[in-house]
Each structure stands twice: as C-alpha cells, then as structure tokens.
C-alpha cells in the first residue's frame, strides 16, 4: 500500500511538473532563430512549415492555428507598442505605416484570448483596400475604446491585453527572403485611461 502510494505521488508530481513546465515554456517569448523581430513585431519564418520544431508548432497551434507557409503569407504579430510596453485595451494606440510590397495586406486586432474583440460596429481590421490614407500618404489605424474619425478599430471597455496581427499575402520575394526588410508600421501609444 505504501509503495503504491509512493508511485502515485511520483506520478502526480511528475505530471504537474511536466505539463506545468511545458505550458510555462510555451507561454514564454520565443528567442530562437526561427523568429525574426523588428520593433514591436515578430514573425516565425517556419510557421505552418513541416520544418517547424515541436515548440514552434505548439505555439502556432495555440495562437495562430492553420497558418500558411511564409511563401504564401507572412504573419507579423505585436504584443507591445514601439516602447516595449504591453498592448492594453485601456490605452489608445496609433498604428502608422506606408504600405507593403505585397499583393494584399491587413491589420487585425485581437483580445487576450486571440479572438476578435466584440464591438457593435463589427469592425476588427483594416486592409490595403479599405484603409483611408492621410495627405502625407501614410495610413493611421486607431485602436481605441472611444470612436475615432478614421480607421477606427474598437477595443471595447474590458481591460485586457491586445494582440495585433499584420498579414502580408503573397509578399514580394525580397520580403520572403528577409522578413525584416518589410517596412513595418509603428505602434504608438497615445493615452491610457
């Protein structure tokens, strides 16, 4: 009886340690060479690929299931603003950029669980076709809980972490070869509640 109890304890402790360490490791910010970083943006160049390692594959399954290979689409993800502070729904942000050497692009905001943020307007993204540009040729997309005149993505009243994804469909060969060469937009924090 004592021996059985001892084995059960070993099993349970190992289970908690094993699963717990796996979840902790997967939640950590990845540092390996498959990730390219530029400003607040990061992209996994092996996302969706059969060459992906088990940790990257698990991370993509959690936060980007059914991603396409980079030859078809590059996904840049931002969890922070330009200054490195986490993106939060209680703050307002301006995403400012020129555009990209790609067939089509979009910027989409997600809540802490990587799902679309509920809002009455059902507005979650802007893309190269529907974004309004300023006179200087730049686009400025606003993440905010209060209405903005142009390019407004509502972030709701609930305080939560935000994630922003920039999708480049059929990017140019130069960007596929070097994802850090893309002219990625700035994410500028304006004000916090």
């Amino acid at each position, binding site marked *: 009886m004592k021996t059985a109890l001892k084995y059960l304890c070993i099993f349970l402790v190992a*289970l908690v*340690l094993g699963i717990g360490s796996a979840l902790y490791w*997967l939640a950590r910010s990845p540092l390996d060479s498959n990730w390219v970083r530029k400003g607040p943006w990061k992209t996994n160049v092996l996302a969706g690929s059969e060459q992906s390692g088990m940790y990257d594959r698990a991370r993509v399954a*959690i936060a980007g299931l059914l991603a396409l290979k980079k030859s078809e689409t590059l996904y840049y993800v931002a969890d922070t603003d330009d200054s490195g502070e986490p993106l939060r729904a209680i703050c307002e942000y301006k995403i400012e950029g020129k555009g990209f050497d790609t067939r089509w692009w*979009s910027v989409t905001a997600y809540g802490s669980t990587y799902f679309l943020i509920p809002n009455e307007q059902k507005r979650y993204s802007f893309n190269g076709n529907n974004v309004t540009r300023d006179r200087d040729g730049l686009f400025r997309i606003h993440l905010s809980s209060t209405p903005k005149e142009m390019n407004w993505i509502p972030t709701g009243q609930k305080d939560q972490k935000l994630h922003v994804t920039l999708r480049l469909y059929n990017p140019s060969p130069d960007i596929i070869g070097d994802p850090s060469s893309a002219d990625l937009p700035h994410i500028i924090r304006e004000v916090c509640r």
Partner: protein
Amino acid sequence: MIATLVLAAIFHVAAVAFLPDVIMAVVSKIALQSSKASVNTAIYRPRETHDQQTIVMPSPDLLYTLCVYDVSQKPLRIEAPVPKGTYFSVAMYAANTDNFFVINDRQLERDGREILLVHKGMSYHGSGNYRVVEAPTPQGIILCRTLITDENRIDEMIRIQHQVTITQVEQ
C-alpha cells in the same frame, strides 16, 4: 527524485509534441458539430465576427471554407474556382497542423482547378486532369480562403466561396 524528474521530462515532451494534434482534433470536432456537417464535406463558414468564430485569430477580411478530411479509405476531389479580381487559396493541413500544401488563384489558373487528395502511400485508380497531393496523415483540415476585396461585392464573394466543391472519389 531522479525518477520523478525523468517522468516529468517525458510528460513535458509529450505535452508539447501532442498539443497541436489535440488542438486540431478539438477544432475539427467543434467545426463539425457547430455546422452539423460530416467529415469530407465542405463547410461554408459565414463571415468571421466576434459571435461567429471557431479558430483563433480569424481574419474578418476572408471567407473561409473548411473541410475536416479523412482520406484513410478514399481520396478526395477538390474543385476550386479561379475568381477574377480577388485572392483565393486552398490550403491543406496535417493532423499536427503542418501546412503541407497550398495553392492560390494565380497558380490554379496556370495549373488547373482540380486537386486529388490521397493518403501518402495509398494506391488509387483514375485518370483526369488533376494535381495529386499526398497527405502525410489520413486526417486533417482543408481551408479555402476567399478575400473580400470590397464590402459592396460581398454577395459575389459568397458566390465564389460556394464554388468550392469537395467530394469523395469512389475507387
């Protein structure tokens, strides 16, 4: 102590290695149940909104057509449209989430609209003007993406989305 650590390491590796398979299985089940569809049939998803989302990080700019496939017994024939003026792609994922095949509208126009999905090593008979794709695992997901280029053309995009046909091929 050492036995506990060794066992913990085994659980750690197993959890990381099998997590994608588990997530794919759960998502497949939810997709089938929520649409009351069966395996090997096309599920034409409505536009993604906050109250209509099954998979993490959906793109609200795309219309998704999803198929939970099982080619362990019979191949699947996928016929895709070649729309003008928008992006369209067919992507295939193995049970561990690997994107083992993708083709977009430009490549479909050049190489033909029909694809035959077979399980790796499966013998199949038939002749036709189609591209044969071997799935590394018998089960997985096919995901077609149709880009909504213009909100005023949404009905046209939905018509394009419904032009995808997926049927089992009798051997």
